[in-house]
């Protein structure tokens, strides 16, 4: 009996390791394809999301997207050289507020999903690369131009993590860098945290604009 138990335990550990390994080894383009298709399908199938139900969208973002994003790295890059001056507590609060802002914006984008489809550019990066870009496009109807949407990922111990997004040709971190520097110049790290927190409160009070 004991032997059997041990055998079972060994088997489960082995299976768990394999599963963990499989996730860690999922190629970055496959990961992005899987997540974005998943999000797109979920949004299209969910009337509450299309109606702009904030809680539902937030949940979708938190379960499907957030585990694959490294917000700490994003925040540190956007803060640039000021990051080193921040205390651990400030770093934590800044990351949280920036994360909330991006989640809210992303939720707004998801609420607008209706009849869009995705297209991926062939992925080419050497297998040993640890910093890659996945290129995609959101195709729209009504003769509208496609929206360019690229993801920059870094290989980490727990698998590939997104740390920058390019929308319509502009990298998010790069775009926020200037704003962060200005706000920090005006009121220090705490000033930036406060501005972000105020913005987040204002956003939380306004309903998400729904899809047309």
């Amino acid at each position, binding site marked *: 009996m004991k032997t059997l138990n041990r055998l079972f335990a060994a088997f489960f550990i082995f299976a768990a390791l394999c599963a963990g390994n499989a996730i860690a080894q999922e190629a970055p383009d496959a990961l992005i394809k899987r997540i974005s298709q998943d999000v797109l399908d979920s949004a299209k199938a969910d009337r509450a999301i299309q109606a702009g139900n904030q809680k539902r969208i937030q949940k979708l973002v938190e379960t499907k997207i957030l585990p694959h994003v490294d917000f700490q790295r994003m925040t540190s*890059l956007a803060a*640039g*050289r000021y990051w080193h001056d921040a205390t651990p507590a400030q770093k934590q609060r800044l990351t949280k507020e920036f994360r909330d*802002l*991006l989640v*809210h*914006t992303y939720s*707004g*984008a998801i609420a*607008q999903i209706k009849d869009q489809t995705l297209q991926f550019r062939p992925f*080419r*990066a*050497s297998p*040993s*690369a*640890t*910093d*890659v*870009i996945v*290129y995609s496009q959101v195709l729209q*109807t*009504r*003769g*509208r*131009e496609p*929206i*360019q949407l690229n993801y*920059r990922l*870094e290989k980490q111990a727990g698998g590939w993590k997104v740390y*920058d997004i390019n929308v*319509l*040709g*502009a*990298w998010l*971190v*790069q*775009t*926020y*860098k*200037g*704003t962060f520097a*200005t*706000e920090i110049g005006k009121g220090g790290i705490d000033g930036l945290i406060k*501005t*972000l927190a105020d*913005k987040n409160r204002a*956003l939380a009070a306004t309903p998400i*604009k729904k899809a*047309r």
Partner: protein
Amino acid sequence: MMFNKRVTRLVLVAAAAAAISGCASTGGNPKDPYEGFNRAMFSFNDTVDRVALKPAATAYRDALPGFVQTGIGNFFGNIGDVWTAVNNLLQGKVEDGMSDVARVALNSTFGLLGLIDVASDAGLPKHREDFGQTLGHWGGEAGPYVVLPFLGSSTVRDTFALPFDFYGDPWGYKDPVSVRNIGRGVRVIDKRAGALEAGDLVEEAALDKYEFVRDAYLQRRQNQIDDDGEKHVPDYDSESGVKPQEGAKPPASSAAQR
């Protein structure tokens, strides 16, 4: 005509007054030495958009059937492809330029005067090139950021290129003038309608809308000149910001150095 002139003058005076009042402040971004002027122009444009353009575009989007909007967008898109073709050829991108010529030929005939974009379905993708991109392609420096009245974000280089784009627009020769002007209006509203959702997102994402739009625009513009290539991937590890990479090199190597 008289009325038109008077309105134009009024708008110019208002814009100038706004510009003068805003000249005091500058944020110190090296790419934006005219920040005071630009901010004033930005808020002027923002007001015009809020009270006139955005409501018109919203009504347009909500009232007209989707296929009509598609037709309008395609029609002006087809006309715009002529100037895109010229600029692709001017940049030496012969293959793209010839593809654009074929697009116009296909869409103007089988696409019923451009109303249907049959060329895209036939595997000839739409490009978008203007004279500013042509100058940029041949190494023309963007110069400082400029916000133009009504037209919005631009750079000194692209402002110089603007008259060429104006004269290179076939619709500008459409007779009679009344049809030409109505067409111009519709084109502007259709374009704005396509950016309504993006505009809402910018409102949500930006801490300072002016700064956000500027910093995103300058990147986007460079990206258009690079043709969505991989040349200007930000190098966040060095503090210099953007690292220009010669040739299409994936960013893998920059990570390897870490």
